[in-house]
């Protein structure tokens, strides 16, 4: 299996939900979708196409937020492909539906993105802090760029 075949599968399964697609090399495929479709798309990639969910990377691009959901297609070793589903979120109030109901393995990474980047995940079953302390201030999001946070966090913990 190579990038083109994976993209064919994705096209067949997702159709018009793919707004943009890019084959970087035979082992890396990127597709871009509308945030409103994220639950359906990730469920289809994981359940219907049988791809393994690796993780998700949240990135503060200053103009907006990006979330990249990384999936591994490993049906035909040694020709594995990493396919990445990208969404863009508004920087003012980043919020998106949680994919955890369809992809249970995403539960932790969504909790992590919530506390480190301040992205809201609607309908997540368990939004407790994963890495930071329970009394961590709401307005301090460590992985955001350009937000001074001196004095807001008690270093004596």
């Amino acid at each position, binding site marked *: 299996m190579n990038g083109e075949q994976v993209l064919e599968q994705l096209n067949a399964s997702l159709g018009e939900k793919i707004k943009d697609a890019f084959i*970087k090399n035979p082992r890396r495929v990127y597709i871009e979708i509308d945030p409103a479709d994220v639950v359906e798309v990730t469920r289809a990639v994981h359940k219907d196409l049988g791809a393994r969910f*690796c993780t998700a990377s*949240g*990135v503060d691009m200053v103009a907006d937020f990006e979330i990249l959901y990384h999936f591994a297609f490993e049906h035909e070793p040694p020709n594995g492909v990493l396919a990445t589903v990208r969404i863009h979120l508004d920087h003012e109030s980043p919020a998106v539906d949680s994919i955890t109901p369809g992809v249970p*393995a995403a539960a932790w990474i969504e909790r992590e993105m919530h506390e480190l980047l301040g992205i809201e995940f609607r309908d997540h079953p368990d939004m407790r802090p994963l890495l930071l*302390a329970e009394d961590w201030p709401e307005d301090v999001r*460590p*992985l955001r760029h350009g937000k001074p946070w001196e004095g807001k966090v008690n270093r004596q913990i």
Partner: protein
Amino acid sequence: MSNNTPPKTRSVIPIGPFHPLQEEPELFRLHVEGETVVDVDVEIGWNHRGIEKLAEDRTWDQVTFLIERICGICSTSHPIAYVQAVEDCCGGVDVPERALYIRTVIAELERLHSHLLWTGLAGHFLGYNTIFMWGWKYREPVLDICEELTGNRNHYAMIKPGGVRRDLDPSLFPSVHKRLDELKKQVELLIGAVTDDPVLHARLKGIGVLTKEDAIDYCALGPVSRASGVPADVRRNHPYAAYDRVDWDVITAEKGDVYDKTIVRLLECLESIKIIHQCLDNMPEGEIDAKIEEVPPGEGIGHGEAPRGETIHYVRSDGTNSPIRHKVRAPTYMNLPTCKATVIGESITDATIILAAIDPCYCCTERTAAIDAGSKKTIMTGKDLIRLSQEKTLRLRKELGL
């Protein structure tokens, strides 16, 4: 049941969060009714060091050293995944063949000593201190080899974007071959000790079962998934370094219990020895560094098979000399949640070995203390839990007449 029997109360037994044996501090809250675990809750974040944030303040080369400090045991798996992400970001770099072979040798030495470490600790939890002593004794020559080849027992600092930092000295290879041959016999001895022992069969078989469906749902990785019949192995599925140039097998088992996880790890040691032998024999001559000048704007993903499973790194570059985002996902992040599927319904005497079987950390049991269960206050320390586990082994041994 007599009327005097107290009603079953649900107690919560926290295991963790800190213990010197652990690689990563974490807190398990076992909800138990009588001796049966009815629910488990995992809390992590006790040692969150903000490495992803720190990476944004380092240059591309400095990050290699930073992420080597993520874990002492996987101190070469993370750099390998990271440099592959950087090389992917650069649009594919032709890493010299010799460097690929050297990466493979170091990665497999790491897998060997990690698996032997785990075997020893698993033995200790079960009251098999002989296995503990053997496992750790046999691990020492592996660390000696690491030190001779790289200069360090851990934190080898061998990997860099585009290649490796130091060449291996071929005059050392014969002695490495010899010691690996010795080690092979010792690992076979360990395998024999596990497979021939009826007490270990009684103790490990059928407990902590992770079914194939659960392994796929939880996206489990490494030996945990392979013991459940899911052949997830980055070395085979997405070949990197020199893994597609040597002959080796992906070890899988079917049942997904603690016994299978043990056997998979032990058999993988033999595969690692096989891979190292071949790499040393067939190591090509030549350059060891592609000398990457700069990292262009863009993004890259790299992954590799750490001893515990796939470790994956994502980097984003804006063309400056440091990443604007560096995402790291270690294998335990995916394997730890599987404890929901494996511990619930099991007896508390088996909880330590089941939680240890995913090789996350060694249950931090010294620090365990029971908190009150409604009106009843039970106190159980980590020592008690290990004692319970070891007593069960003794009891089984007696029952089996050994």
